[in-house]
């Protein structure tokens, strides 16, 4: 294999790993918790930014062309932990505001506006995170101590990501098989009934949101370690929507499905489309690829509305998406 091909595979594998982790985090929030987190990508972003500034060192010196706050030379693992925590803290702050409306779709719209605010603030406040130009030159984790070549290091990083995927899987698995998760599911299926059973629904919802936010930040920290740069362009609202497509395709609430969905959509479909024979390289051709992607998503939701791997129903037999969803009568009758 040529080095170029190896680069390509390294990139695909690294991105796939990061995407799987992100899809799990979103699946926890939306698939299990029912939170329509349209601001998901800002949690990945905060992890990436935190990991970047904490390993870049103080602004100035060789990086005079960029300005940012909180520069430090933390060891990567420590930076990773702090970045993850940063995601959790941001999720807590955002969640306290955005999860207040009762309706989930309403929460989704509030979260969308939060995502836009975040992008505008980071872009405008050049002194904080170098504005629209973003940060560059983020040190590669362990690179100096290892002294590997670019390709060898790439494969090493694939290994790091693989370990991270396994770690996150263990955490997610423990969470989703716990009694806590059953409560979360009950909350999603029927918040009113869950509340009546004595569950503190807002608190549970916030917990799910914070844990998901922390995992998202973790994925961002991994990603920036590979790309080496990070800017507002990398975390537009569109990225969140792609992750939603992943978990819808994979199967809401199903961790295996989320992983498969993210690989299928973000790795295979996106890269695969580029291999289609194209008559001419014009804007129209590129645009038609995206049309095709949209049509695939629509067709998928039509033929497989519950995804490739539908969530296994545990305690509740009634359908969540029936025509009478949400009416108390249907719930009472069917239980």
């Amino acid at each position, binding site marked *: 294999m040529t080095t170029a091909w190896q680069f390509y595979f390294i990139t695909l594998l690294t991105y796939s790993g990061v995407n799987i982790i992100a899809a799990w985090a979103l699946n926890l929030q939306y698939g299990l918790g029912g939170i329509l987190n349209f601001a998901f990508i800002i949690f990945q972003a905060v992890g990436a930014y935190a990991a970047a500034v904490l390993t870049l060192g103080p602004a100035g010196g060789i990086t005079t062309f960029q300005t940012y706050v909180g520069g430090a030379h933390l060891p990567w693992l420590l930076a990773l932990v702090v970045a993850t925590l940063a995601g959790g803290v941001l999720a807590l702050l955002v969640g306290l505001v955005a999860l207040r409306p009762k309706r989930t779709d309403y929460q989704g719209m509030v979260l969308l506006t939060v995502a836009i605010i975040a992008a505008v603030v980071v872009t405008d406040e050049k002194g904080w995170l170098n504005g629209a130009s973003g940060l560059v030159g983020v040190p590669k984790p362990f690179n100096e101590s290892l002294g590997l070549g670019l390709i060898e290091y790439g494969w090493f990083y694939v290994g790091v990501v693989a370990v991270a995927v396994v770690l996150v899987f263990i955490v997610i698995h423990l969470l989703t098989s716990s009694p806590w998760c059953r409560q979360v599911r009950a909350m999603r299926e029927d918040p009113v009934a869950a509340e009546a059973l004595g569950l503190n629904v807002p608190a549970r919802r916030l917990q799910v949101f914070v844990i998901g936010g922390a995992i998202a930040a973790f994925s961002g920290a991994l990603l920036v370690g590979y790309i080496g740069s990070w800017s507002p362009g990398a975390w537009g609202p569109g990225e969140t929507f792609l992750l939603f497509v992943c978990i819808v395709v994979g199967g809401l609430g199903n961790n295996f499905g989320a992983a498969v969905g993210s690989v299928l959509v973000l790795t295979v479909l996106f890269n695969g489309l580029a291999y289609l024979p194209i008559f001419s390289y014009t804007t129209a051709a590129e645009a038609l690829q995206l049309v095709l992607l949209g049509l695939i998503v629509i067709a998928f939701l039509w033929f497989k509305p519950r995804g490739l791997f539908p969530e296994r129903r545990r305690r509740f037999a009634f*359908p969540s998406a029936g025509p*009478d969803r949400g*009416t*108390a*009568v249907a719930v*009472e*009758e*069917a239980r």
Partner: protein
Amino acid sequence: MRTSPGESPRRDGHLVVEDLSAGYKKTAIIRGVDVAVSKGEVVTVIGPNGAGKSTLLKSVMGLLEPMAGSISLGGEPIGGLPANKVAAKGVGYVPQVRDVFETLSVKENLEMGGYHLRRPEVQERIEEVLLAYPQLKGMLTRSAGKISGGERKMVAIGRVLMTRPSLVILDEPTAGLSPKLAQQMLEQYVARLTAREVAVLLVEQRAREALEISQYAYVLASGEVKLESAAASILDRDDLGQVFLGRTEGAA
């Protein structure tokens, strides 16, 4: 097993439901249910929670498509028709909750009840309803979401009367009302509907009160009719409490 001694199942009436199965997606919640209601009588369906009472009503109303069986109104099949068509055939439906248009005024609620009437008729019918429920007069411009539970149910019933229906379906009209109000509701408003030659199909949790104003009753449990009989004969039974829960073993 299914019927009380000495009575055969009733097979005719204004509304006739035969061998009806219905439910959500592929799960049938009621199976093989037969029900009949004649004009001028109140027929009550009682049974424990989850028996399928609301499912039955929704299937009749066209809110749920029947999986099997037939429904006819005045001899005309209505099974499988969408709800707005069923309504146009003269069926009024008062759901258990969310029974009024909360963001509309009381008057607008009544207007919506007479949606497919001609304009001059609407005004005429509103007068008619106000004659039956004079209390509504004072609250015509108020928002239906902001009136008391009793008043709200009155608006809901008034709304379905706009079309001069031949069948009125009531799903637990006393839910959430105080015992006193509940009794008033059943005795004064529901029972009085029969005077208009209306067939009334009623689902109630307050079984005793409901049976007192009913002519006939069905006991539904686990999606099947476990017992049917004249209302009075059920009221006379000693094991009434058991009957409500659908436990009729040994009663036959």
